[in-house]
């Protein structure tokens, strides 16, 4: 999990703990970790794994999704650098996926043919 996600997750743990009116020592004791470990979770300075998060969710009586919902968006905010022209950062349609996976089933000769055909299509696109 990336630093931005860990930071956001830590804030959510802190908020839920305070809502539950528990101090760090109490929550750490309930989930079986040290107070410093919990403190680092809350600061986003320690990698957290699913089993530990499940224990936190259960103890604080929150659904797991409370901690995880839209966490992706935190990392996406931190990673806007992807060039929108970069195909690897664009969602791909099912048909493109199918083409990609089919390409790997072709032999070398067929791949060369395909390469020539794609170049022809690109030439055609640029020409007209």
């Amino acid at each position, binding site marked *: 999990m990336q630093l931005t996600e860990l930071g956001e997750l830590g804030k959510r743990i802190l908020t839920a703990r305070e809502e539950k009116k528990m101090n760090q020592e109490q929550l750490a004791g309930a989930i079986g970790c040290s107070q410093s470990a919990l403190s680092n979770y809350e600061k986003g300075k320690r990698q957290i794994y*699913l089993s530990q998060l499940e224990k936190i969710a259960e103890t604080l009586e929150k659904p797991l999704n409370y901690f995880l919902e839209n966490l*992706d968006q935190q990392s996406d905010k931190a990673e806007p650098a992807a060039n929108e022209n970069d195909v690897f950062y664009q969602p791909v349609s099912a048909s493109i996926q199918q083409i990609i996976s089919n390409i790997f089933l072709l032999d070398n000769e067929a791949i060369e043919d395909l390469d020539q055909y794609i170049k022809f299509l690109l030439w055609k696109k640029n020409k007209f």
Partner: protein
Amino acid sequence: MDFTLSENQRMLVDGLHSLCEEEIKPYYDGHQFMSEGSFDWHLIRLLGKKNLICPTIPAKYGGLGLDIVTTALLMEEISSYVPSLAAIIETNIHSIQPILLAGTDAQKKLIFSDCIGENTCLLAYALTEPTGGSSLKSMYTFAEKTTGGYIINGYKSYILNAPEAKYILLFAFTDQLHKKSSLRCFIVPTGTPGVKIDRECQLNTLDYARISNIAFDNVFIPDNLVLKNNEPYSGYFLLHQTMDIGKALIAAASVGMASAAYNFAFSFAREREIAGKSIFQFQSIAHSFADMATKIEMARLLTWKACWLIDSGEDFAVASSMAKLAASRTAQEIGACAMDIIGAAALVKGTPMERLWNDIRMLSIVEGTNNLQKDIIAGLL
């Protein structure tokens, strides 16, 4: 702080050492393994008899139930004799790890029962794709929800054990936006229609192991073979935790390979004479060995610490990355140094040192490249 091995650990390591000396090493040294033809199961069967192909399977399911420290001790021992055998075992351990962490009892029974004893199966762990290994955004294997399960399409590359595996632990996104919350871990029986074990990779490393690409063409996997199917992020969490544990075991294997390279060079330096004395007696060579022995010990201690943190439930993400980074780098430094000491004889194709060097070379690449480990460490400092 106590570094003493327990009686059980000592017994396991000594037993494995004897097996390696008496049966595994002679067999491996006497064979050149080709990537064509049928797989040679002999070494797997030898270790399978001792239940060492998946030693972390709990006793409840018929395994040895070893912790990570003990498993690391065994990985170091095996990899000092046959690194590719250690890689096969590490892949099996890696593949059962998500099931150990998050599998249902039924899933555990299904997989673990096939990984016990002499007739154990092999498992594969499918993450890397042609478009990248470490970047999830470059993953194009998708699982589309359908009634009662998922339809999987995609392609995975450089998958160790794939040609012989009975099950594949597959990571795939369930949406096309590459949302981490949609990543899931699937248990895919290799006999499922649409699973095609594709062209075998001809790699100049890990000669005993088999490595292939795998195509998934409209593969249906039922919900009961998905780990934590309904929990967002489950695949992402399991992937990270499994990798963080795996790195410590790769570190252990690296220490084993570093020790093997050291031992090859040490024997050579003791016997090789120049001007009537062994080259070990020259200070420049003796100091090289002092440096190598010290570095191996440093790498071993970092590895043990990472493994101990894993077993203790403490924070091990950074320690694992540090252990992997340091131990693989140490193995490569010592491998290169050993080659220099042995000289041209170390370059002869098919000799033990040449085979070892080919295996050592891949250590900075597998289980997340060393550059990636630096990113992880820096991110959590």
